[in-house]
Every structure is written in structure tokens, then in C-alpha cells.
């Protein structure tokens, strides 16, 4: 969009003068994908003397925007590509490569966990999210007010959550909760606030400071967000971890994508608590 491009002209003019010579690889996006890519970037830096910047401004949507505007060569997203992404940047050919799988956990603070809240159904989560249930005692927990820390809009975690509850993030109702951004912030705030619940990447639910509750599925089965239940598909809220490029990746970006798909890169996903790409179907659905 022309007029929005113009807006960055001032900043870009300054940035371009310094960046034109070096050709570094710039990566931006999801804080969930970030730890894996940061480790992979470290490999490339030491082995290929490559210059790589990895940033997490604005989560998944921030990554897409950076790629769309040409401020990054790779976007990290912790969700599927949405039609909206290409609608916003019609001149960019977004190509997503799945590097692994993560689940979305609903994490609660220690007092709630110890107070007996270990399982929530989708209906209960929805009522908590919409503010119809405001006390933990309505779902078998202690007599304590529920504090919902909502992930910011634009975060892959929030999009996956809204998709699970409402089928389409756009159908999610307006709610007003305190918001959290990066995974570190969400985990820290849930851990330090009595009665807290939030959406968080399952790999970050350490079961020491914050606790991922099990989900009671429609068929009555209770499933915890563990690697095994994510792998066999029984845990209901999973999402792909992806790197996105403008068309097929080239040069340093290609080396990064290839590295992430190689056994060495896939090992990084396991190291950080995510699920690597399933072997039978490496391209994903």
C-alpha cells in the first residue's frame, strides 16, 4: 500500500544507507519460534561467518509485517498463514515452511493448580474468557477471583486460541483483559499473580512456575498438553511453527531454512520442548 510505505520512508532512508553494503539476514516474528531460530543463527554465524539479526517485534503479525515491508527476509510465525496476510501485502508471495509443531496450553498460577484446577473443558475456557465465570470455585478451584492475562492481538498464540474457541479469530468477541506480549512476560505475570490464567506455548509451561491444565475434550477424554499427546494429535490445540519467506528462500535465507529442516535443526526444536516435523509427512498438510 503506497501511503503506508511512504510512512517508513524517513526511517528507511537512514537505515538503507548503512544496510546496503552488508546484506545481513534479518529475521523477525514469534517469540515461540525465536529460541530455535536464535540457536540455528548461532550455528550459521560461527560456521559461515554470516551476519544474522533475530528480533521478536510484535510476534507473528510483526514478523509478517516486517517481511511484507522488506524489513526482514524471514518471518517466524506460530500459526498458519492467513488469507489476510496476503491481502495486506499483495506484492509479496508468502511461502511458509513448517519446521515443527507446538501446542497451546492454558496455564494457571500455582495457587490455582494446587487449589484443584487441573482440567478445563472448552466451554469452561470460553466462559472464563468472556467473563461469565469470574471465580475459580465455579470450575472446582479455590474461592478466588480469576485474572485472565490475554495474549495481545496479532500474537500467534492468541490467534490459535481464538481459532480453537470460535473457529475464526475474527469471530472472537470483544473482551477487556490485561494483555501480555512475549512468552517470558506471560509466564512471569501468571507465575506472580494469584488466580491467574493465560494462553501460553506448551513448551513454556514448565509445571514449576506455571501449570498447563488438561483439556476435557468433547468426547469426555481428558488430555494434558504433553509432547506425546501433541504428537498423536489427541491434544486439541496444536499449531505449526513456521518460517516464512517471500517466494522460495534464496542465499543465506535458504541456508537457514535448510538448516532448520535438517536433523541438526530439528534437534533444536526438541531441545526447546517443541515437536519436530513428523517424519512421514515432512511438508505438512
Amino acid at each position: 500500500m503506497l501511503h503506508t510505505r511512504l510512512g517508513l520512508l524517513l526511517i528507511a532512508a537512514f537505515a538503507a544507507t548503512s544496510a546496503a553494503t552488508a546484506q545481513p539476514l534479518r529475521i523477525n516474528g514469534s517469540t515461540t519460534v525465536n529460541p530455535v531460530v536464535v540457536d540455528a543463527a548461532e550455528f550459521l554465524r560461527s560456521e559461515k561467518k554470516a551476519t544474522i539479526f533475530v528480533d521478536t517485534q510484535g510476534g507473528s503479525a510483526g514478523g509478517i509485517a516486517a517481511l511484507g515491508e522488506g524489513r526482514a527476509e524471514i518471518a517466524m510465525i506460530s500459526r498458519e498463514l492467513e488469507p489476510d496476510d496476503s491481502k495486506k501485502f499483495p506484492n509479496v508471495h508468502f511461502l511458509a515452511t513448517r519446521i515443527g509443531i507446538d501446542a497451546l496450553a492454558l496455564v494457571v498460577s500455582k495457587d490455582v493448580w494446587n487449589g484443584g484446577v487441573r482440567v478445563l473443558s472448552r466451554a469452561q475456557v470460553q466462559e472464563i474468557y468472556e467473563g461469565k465465570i469470574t471465580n475459580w470455585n465455579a470450575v472446582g478451584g479455590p474461592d478466588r477471583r480469576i485474572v485472565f492475562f490475554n495474549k495481545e492481538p496479532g500474537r500467534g498464540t492468541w490467534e490459535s486460541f481464538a481459532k480453537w474457541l470460535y473457529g475464526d479469530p475474527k469471530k472472537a468477541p470483544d473482551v477487556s483483559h490485561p494483555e501480555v506480549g512475549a512468552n517470558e512476560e506471560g509466564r512471569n505475570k501468571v507465575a506472580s499473580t494469584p488466580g491467574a490464567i493465560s494462553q501460553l506455548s506448551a513448551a513454556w509451561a514448565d509445571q514449576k512456575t506455571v501449570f498447563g491444565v488438561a483439556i476435557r475434550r468433547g468426547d469426555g477424554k481428558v488430555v494434558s498438553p504433553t509432547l506425546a499427546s501433541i504428537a498423536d494429535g489427541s491434544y486439541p490445540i496444536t499449531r505449526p511453527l513456521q518460517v516464512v519467506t517471500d517466494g522460495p528462500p534464496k542465499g543465506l535465507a535458504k541456508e537457514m531454512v535448510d538448516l532448520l529442516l535438517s536433523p541438526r535443526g530439528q534437534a533444536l526444536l526438541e531441545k526447546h520442548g517443541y515437536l519436530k516435523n513428523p517424519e512421514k509427512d515432512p511438508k505438512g498438510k
Partner: protein
Amino acid sequence: MSRGEGVAGRGDRRAPDFLRLAAFGLSAFALASFVGLVAVFVQQAWPFVKAQGIAGLFGVHWSFRSERFGALPMIYGSLAVSAIALVLAAPIGWGAAVFLAEVLPRRSRIAAKVGVELLAGIPSVVYGLLGVLLLRDTAMRLLRPFDPISGDTLATGGLLLAIMILPTVVSLSDDALAAVPKSQRAAARALGLGKAETILRAVVPTALPGLASALLLGLGRALGETIAVFLVIGRQDNQWPERLWTLDPLARAGQSVTSKLGGSETAVAYGDPVHWGALLGLGLLLLAVVAGLSFAGSWLALRRAPRA
């Protein structure tokens, strides 16, 4: 006394031409950048103004999915946070400045001032992280009578801002006090006033415009501050208080203009001209307020020379 005149140097010989030219060119560049920036902001905000009018910003409900962009709760958040910061920073900052300028011997004053100015240079994200680590739990405990849902409240943001602007306030207030001529103090002492009375009756009243300007310039920094406040304010939308002048809303989570602009909503808004325009409108609003405060602060600082 006529301190004001000697400094301005109106009677100086004219500077060499190339110097004048260079100075003119650079000033013009600075001015042009500013005008260009505002122009870009206005141009980007235009789709929003066309769709909803400037009045669209002055509602109490912000929800970009239903295209409502009422910014009043954020303006309230910014003002509340700044007011708390001022109320806390004024007495402490001025008190510390009086101590620096009037009580400490010259050599220790310089040392202390260097320390204070170092504090002013600490990046705000460091303050923010310290705020998350130290202030949230304290705020939760202090605010218990108001029953906050978490340690992220407008009051926490205000407290953090007070700490952040304190070095600025102390340093500028100290300058204002030090600029009061020696003769004023001597005259007061000659009239038989004690040290404390000299400070309270002669020095502080003379320096008052400078002290006020220190506070306003500190506030200018506070209003534009993003990251630190972002981390402790709670970032909850639509917290328009039912009764505006009560204190309870301060113990709740809220949103300020800067915490909204610092969030990831800007990434969502990108490509949607109206939503993006609304956010740019917020930016313009902030720019106007901060510019106004800086003008007022500088104006007070300029006329702080004694009147007589």
C-alpha cells in the same frame, strides 16, 4: 540586577558569513525534519479522519475489530500515570535539589550531580525490567485495600515513572537553584534570616519558575515514555472509570497512549488504513501534548531570571 541581558550578546559583532550560513542551514534542516514528520503523520492519519472524523478518537470504547477507536481511556491512563509521577517526584526531586544546591559543599555537589545525571541516562527498558521485578509485588501489597487484580496498575506505572523522571527533575531544579544570584542570599542573610529561612523565603521563590520548568520537562519525558510503563501498566483496554475523580481506578490495570502504541496492535493495523490512521492519530495526540509541555517548560525556564 540585569542578568538576562549580558548573556544574550545582542551587541556582538556579526559572526563570519559561512558560520551564519551553516547555522541557518542546520536549523532549517532540523525544522524541516520536524515539519516533514508531522506532515507524514497527518497524511497517514487522514484515512481515519475521513472515515470517522477527529471526534472518532474521543470515545470511550476501543475495539479495532468493530472499528471503534475511542482513545479517552488511554488519554486518561496517560494523564493518571503522569499525575501520579508528578505528585511523587515533585517533593522528593525539589527536596533533593535544595539539598544539592544549598546544603552540600561545592565539591560533593558536583560528585552527587554527576551521579544523578548518570541515573537519568539509564535506558528505560532497564527501569521497566526492574519495575517488573521489584515494583509489581510491592504495588500489589500497598494497594491491597483497593483490591487490585494484579500488580499491573496505573499506580504502578506512575510510581515507576516517578522514579524515572526523578533524576531529570533533581538535576534541572538544582540548576535553577544554583542560578539564583549570590547577592540574593547575601541580602537575605544581612536581613537576619537564618539558613533555612533564606532558602525558603529568598532562594526558592526566586527559582520557582525554574523549579516548575524542571517538573514540566520531566513530565514531558514521562508522557513519551513507552517501554517501562508498557511492562507494568497492565495494558487493559476500555478502562474508562465510572467516576472520573475517584482513586480506585488507579489501582486497576489500564492502558496509556504509549503502551497502546508500543504493543503488537500496530503490526495488526498495518495495511488497514483506518485502523493504522487511528493509531497515527494517537501518535499525533501524544506529540501535541508533549510539545505543549516542552514549550511551557522551556518558556518558564527562559523567564526564570529575576524580574526586578
